[in-house]
């Protein structure tokens, strides 16, 4: 099917943060910009709906981020997670560019709020936008509409049509079955996210463990555009098993449970697997620096499930779980309620309690309250679990987004396996996050990547469209 209509200057695939930023940026130079949003308007924004802050370099504090966070410190933080940055050049560009991100966001309609309570330690490094991700998406849509960006909802980009090295059209399907519509484009920005909601795809790298993964974002993040780009010869960036995953309530919905289902009890608890055994240091680091490893930790346990157990002493120190914890007057009672072997859990807790070294408990810092002679140890916030009532909760890996994506050039062009790059196809956001992140994650940095690369891709796509 071909339509005689004049081609769009820039077609942006995906209506999350990266796509919106790309569309708004592209519209500054290009006159006809189209954004394709796969969801209906009420659910627009993809994973961005579930975000709440952005991590950026700032050389001085202000009312929202009360202290400096210089380049070197953010760079060190990035190097400390997982295997460090994937591509140092692109990662350092991202960190450098992050300094101008908050100002850009403010200028494009985003409002801020002081750091949320219960987000200890994030206040200095991360900036919280008022109302969270959906409010951000709403604001960007207002800005985009005022700037003259066209948005189509309920549209899925099924494929790209190429003439030589140049994409000439996006094949788009609507809600109705039928042949995809051919949307002619001078430049295309792929900001369609990862493939975390595609369980079959996850199974290729994780085997049947993927069946026990819960996906924190919408079911539409199935990686269709990523697969299309690979089929067209795009080069791969990032590790196949690279993802950002956290511990979430095992009772969460399979898709789109977002922030409310995550659990912050781990550093104040002990975590056992289905055999009732501990398997990782719960008090290794401050929670904002370690929360992102627990999805992976649990993914490595039998049945991809683990159980956090705590007592009355610490029950108010973390955000209350959405579905409520199991509660009983004894450790064995909680274990039984969780479907665990009460004897095994009671033995684990008793052994742990005996190994706790007396110290001065302080949830706001690495307090050195630790175990002695226990494997694995608990290095901080270790207190005996001895005060009824006892609580417990079952946790599964909650996958936020996958890192495996397409390789890009410094101006966000999608690279090909032959070593070149597509002339007019660009990528931004999670679909290219594997250029920067390897296996670990730094809270709020997904938004940074999306904004920096949304701007880069949007500007480059507009230039390509206006003067090819």
């Amino acid at each position, binding site marked *: 099917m071909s339509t005689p209509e004049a081609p769009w200057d820039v077609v942006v695939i995906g209506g999350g943060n990266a796509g919106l930023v790309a569309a708004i940026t592209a519209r500054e130079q290009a006159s006809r910009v189209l954004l394709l949003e796969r969801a*209906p308007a*009420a*659910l627009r*924004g993809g994973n961005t*709906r*579930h975000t*709440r802050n952005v991590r950026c370099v700032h050389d001085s504090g202000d009312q929202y981020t009360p202290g400096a966070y210089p380049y070197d410190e953010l760079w060190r933080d990035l190097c400390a997670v997982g295997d460090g940055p994937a591509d140092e050049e692109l990662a350092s560009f991202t960190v450098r560019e992050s300094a101008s991100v908050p100002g850009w966001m403010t200028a494009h309609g985003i*409002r801020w*709020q*002081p750091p*949320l*309570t*219960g987000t200890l330690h994030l206040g200095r490094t991360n900036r*919280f936008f*008022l*109302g*969270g*991700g*959906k*409010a951000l998406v*709403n604001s960007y849509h*207002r800005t985009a509409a005022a700037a003259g960006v066209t948005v189509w909802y309920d549209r899925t980009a099924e494929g790209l049509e190429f003439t030589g090295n140049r994409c000439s059209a996006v094949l788009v399907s609507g809600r109705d079955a039928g042949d995809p519509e051919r949307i002619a484009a001078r430049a295309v920005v792929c900001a369609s996210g990862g493939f975390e909601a595609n369980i079959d795809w996850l199974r290729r790298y994780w085997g049947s463990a993927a069946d026990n993964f819960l996906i924190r974002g919408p079911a539409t993040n199935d990686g269709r555009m990523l697969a299309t780009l690979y089929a067209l010869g795009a080069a791969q960036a990032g590790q196949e098993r690279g993802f950002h995953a956290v511990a979430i309530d095992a009772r969460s*919905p399979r898709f*789109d449970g*977002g*922030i*409310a*289902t995550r659990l912050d009890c781990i550093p104040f608890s002990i975590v056992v697997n289905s055999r009732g055994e501990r398997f990782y240091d719960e008090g290794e680091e401050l929670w904002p620096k370690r929360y992102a490893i627990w999805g992976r930790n649990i993914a490595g346990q039998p049945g991809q499930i683990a159980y956090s157990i705590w007592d009355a002493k610490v*029950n*108010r120190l973390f*955000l*209350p*779980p*959405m579905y*409520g914890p199991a509660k009983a007057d004894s450790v064995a009672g909680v274990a039984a309620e969780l479907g665990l072997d009460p004897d095994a859990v009671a033995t684990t807790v008793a052994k742990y309690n005996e190994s706790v070294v007396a110290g001065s408990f302080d949830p706001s810092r690495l307090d050195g309250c630790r175990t002695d002679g226990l494997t694995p140890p608990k290095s901080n916030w270790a207190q005996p679990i001895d005060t009824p009532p006892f609580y417990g909760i079952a946790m599964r890996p909650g996958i936020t987004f996958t890192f495996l994506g397409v390789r890009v050039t410094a101006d966000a062009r999608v690279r090909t396996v032959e070593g070149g790059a597509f002339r007019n196809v660009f990528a931004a956001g999670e679909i290219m996050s594997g250029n920067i992140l390897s296996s670990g994650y730094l809270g709020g940095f997904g938004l940074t990547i999306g904004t920096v690369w949304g701007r880069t891709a949007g500007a480059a796509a507009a230039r390509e469209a206006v003067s090819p």
Partner: protein
Amino acid sequence: MNDGGMSEGPFAEADRQLTICNACRYCEGYCAVFPALERQVDLTAGDITHLADLCHDCRDCYTACMYAPPHEFALNLPAALSAVRHHTYDEYLPRLTWPAGRRGAMLAAALAAILLLAVLGVIVGGAGAPAGSPYRVIAYPALLVAFGLPAAWSVIVMAWSAARYWRATDGRGWGGLASPAALGRALRQAATLRNLRGGGADCSYPGDEPSGARRRLHHLVAWGFAACTASTVAAAISQDFAGDPPPYPAASAPVLFGVIGGAGLVIGCAGLLVLRRTAASSGTAAREDPALARRGYALLAALLVLAVSGLLTLVVRDTAAFGPVLYVHLVAVAACFAIAPYTKFMHVIYRFLALVRHNSEPVQR
């Protein structure tokens, strides 16, 4: 869930939603409800009532919520909390054996007030007062009785309801009411409608787009009401202390306050009614409890009748229509005095008490 009422509809649903909110907390910057919620781990019916009245219905939490319908969590906190408020407005009224129920009591109070005014008007009359004086319709002492009795009734019912409300929602006794700092902060927040600012984002009302219209119109209504009260007080001072009986010239305090206040009420109430109609037709009607929405209309309509009839008395005071128009206005005032505690007028008291409790609780960080 600690007590009886919690298993009932509006509380159970509000509890379900607030539990999700407390695990999310993204809306913390919008208003006082979320910081207040975060102090709680297990919500009681009193806590939920407190949060419901702390909510000023800006609806920013709805447009910002990724769990709003069609999401399966189906969060609609403005509607859930307004359903609890609707419950609140009935729950704390004095329980009378006769007339039973809110409607019965309201009707009886209104009829009694109107009857009282009519009887006094016939018995006492208003002969002797100069032209343009309100006392040509009914003599001053009779008017005092006709307004004083329903007003006293109202004050007693309101105080009774407020006391029951405070006992039910405040965990720490009467101390909060005696804290000048908490009272001062609550007064300032009430006077500025701080909780309708959405943390700087304004309201998501009447539609999805941010707008300060509701806050501004509410200011006109609230301050208009205050100016009308000031007009009455000024008139009382002029008459009883300065020995200067009505009618008052256009450039006098009673007339100026009355005109300004009446105009504020008319513009504010009419504007809020228009916003309500817009909200109802823009598909956002589901963000409010329908029964409470009807009471919202009723309060605005009643205030509009008061303001328009009051302004009319001024306009026609040198004509033959003055007597009938004034009579309509007096009937409206007496009836409204009598029924105020049974209407959404009580939001003034409950919201203020909620703000007092909120401001006497420790700040969490």
